[in-house]
């Protein structure tokens, strides 16, 4: 298990990470969400030893992450970067060897990965001659070439077209199903909701919500009641005690209840206005959860 245990980091007076804790299990795809500047990149950089933490610890399989452990991690930095004048295969082989692989194994992995990810290139092309999409694929390959035990990817999907997103998702899912914990950050919340097993939402350096997507959506406090009562006079719901009206439009209202167990009283109030076409609890989307979480 990859553990972030009470990780804190300050740059001068600015507390960038404040007592941040979460775990990622083997085979778990963890989506890391947060507004710009919330602390996602700093968290990942700490895991890779690029930033020193002030307090707390990062552990993999119970052991503090040091250089030896980190060499078995795969990393895709937010700031993409490879040697522009080196060929993709050589570059990937080099990174594989830096991670401690034998040259021949690294070279074979590099070639396999480029083929798997569908990187189109001439045999003598240096990296800078490839299209941006292909460069991005090579960047991912650099994170995968040494068969890492842990994958940490900072905004891996940014700048990819939908086909590229699918290819990348497939590649990550394949690794994940083989027992590799995968952490990636993204602003594409619909994508996170679709592919991730669990999600962490970070705001101002604190983890404000963490859990499986289903868990988060099912949390009572964040659920909303949707009622369609076409005959009701506008503003009918505002008069019911313990109810907050989130939206009201042409007979359709979206409500939040102070006490969700009193939903039957709300139904009765709705029925007094006339017909009730629709009455249901609705789990919020991740986007809504995110808005709520970071609004604090």
């Amino acid at each position, binding site marked *: 298990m990859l553990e972030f245990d009470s990780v804190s980091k300050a740059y001068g007076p600015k507390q960038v990470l404040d007592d941040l804790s979460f775990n990622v299990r083997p085979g778990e795809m963890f989506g890391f969400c947060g507004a710009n500047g919330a602390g996602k990149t700093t968290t990942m950089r700490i895991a*890779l*030893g*690029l*930033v*020193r933490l002030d307090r707390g610890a990062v552990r993999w399989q119970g052991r503090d992450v040091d*250089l030896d452990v*980190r*060499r078995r*991690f795969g*990393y895709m*930095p937010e*700031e*993409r*970067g*490879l*040697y*522009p*004048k*080196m060929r993709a295969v050589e570059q990937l082989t*080099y*990174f594989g*060897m*830096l*991670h401690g692989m034998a040259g021949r194994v690294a070279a074979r992995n590099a070639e396999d990965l480029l083929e798997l990810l569908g990187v189109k290139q001439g045999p003598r092309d240096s990296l800078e001659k490839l299209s941006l999409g292909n460069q991005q694929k090579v960047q991912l390959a*650099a994170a995968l070439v040494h068969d890492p035990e842990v994958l940490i990817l900072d905004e891996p999907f940014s700048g990819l077209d939908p086909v590229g997103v699918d290819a990348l998702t497939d590649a990550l899912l394949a690794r994940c199903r083989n027992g590799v914990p995968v952490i990636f950050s993204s602003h594409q919340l619909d994508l996170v909701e679709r592919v991730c097993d669990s999600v962490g939402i970070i705001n101002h350096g604190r983890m404000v919500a963490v859990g499986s997507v289903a868990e988060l959506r099912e949390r009572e406090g964040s659920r909303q009641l949707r009622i369609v009562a076409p005959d009701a006079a506008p503003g009918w719901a505002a008069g019911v005690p313990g109810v907050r009206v989130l939206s009201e439009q042409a007979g359709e209202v979206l409500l939040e209840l102070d006490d969700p167990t009193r939903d039957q009283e709300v139904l009765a109030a709705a029925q007094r206005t006339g017909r009730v076409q629709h009455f249901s609890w609705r789990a919020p989307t991740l986007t809504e959860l995110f808005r709520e979480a970071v609004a604090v």
Partner: protein
Amino acid sequence: MSLIARREVMAKLRDKGFLISSAFIAVVILASALLPALFGGDDSTYDVGVVGDPAGFEEAVAAQADALGAKVDVSAYPGAAAARAALEAEDIDAAVDGDQILVVTSVDGVLQQILDRAYAGVIAAERLSAAGIDPAEVATAFDVPRLDVVSLDSDAQRDQQRQVIAIVGVSVLYGLLILIGQYVAMGVVEEKSSRVVELLLSTIRPWQLLAGKVIGLGLLGLAQLVVIGVVGVGAAISLDVLTVPGDAIGTLAQVIGWFLLGYGFYAATFAAGAALVSRQEDLQTVLLPTIGVLVAAFVVAIQAVQNPDGPLAVVTSFIPGLSPLVMPVRTAAGEVAWWELVASIVLMLLATVALVRLGGRIYAGALLRSGGRVRIKEALAESAS
């Protein structure tokens, strides 16, 4: 670390710019060694015409030329008009007609001496034969060895050659320190501006990256230096430009030793400076102070050739950073006590160790900070925290 060093070497070996500049340097060095030999060889070969063919003249000329270390090709012309025509066509340098030397403007001193002596010898032999003396006895009588020249300061020529070698050596050293130092700096900025450094530092420590880069490029520089040295000194020795090969090889060895010391010192400075910026465009600004020191060291070194005992040369040969360029000049001039050399090397080593540590810390602290220029203080604070 060796992996990193190897990548640096391979990347440079594949870089056309590097290969072309290396080949260019080798050609320049070879040419500068060869040219004096070519021109020098030209000067001591003469073509001389002789009108008629006085008996024994050609042999006498050959003997005199041999004694003076020159070579004279003699060709006979039937009459003065033919000889003049050949002179004007520059086929020959001079023509001998009876008791006259014909030249276009003036005659080379050595050639005149050869022709004078040959002429005197031939005429004297004729007169003695006419007086009834056996020509064989005449030949024996004229076979007098030349006077030996004994120089009271026998080391003068040797010193002069050693100075020339020292100047060439220090110039090459200076050029290479700047060249390889720039490679280090450009490599650092390339990794920083392409952001590949973030990926690298997740698997290796900053000092390993720095050491690998510096060692790899340093080996390339050393290889260039050795090639230049061997080609230059080898060509000079084989063409007899140098008469004291032992000294040349000694100076070459010294230059190589000082390259290693100076390279450690300057590479650390260049790398630390380069780590402060994120773009190649900003590089020159941060490197300027270091290059300034190198230029100053070179100027002092050239000055020291004239005055190896002067206070400036003596003092600067102990100052780390300046000593790699100044000390080889002083030792080549033969004015250095062994303890001076040791002290200079120790000081340089101490300074290099301190600078590599400091430079390494700046490098580590500034490497992941992109954007504008990082202040040295910030970089040190970052690597210390």
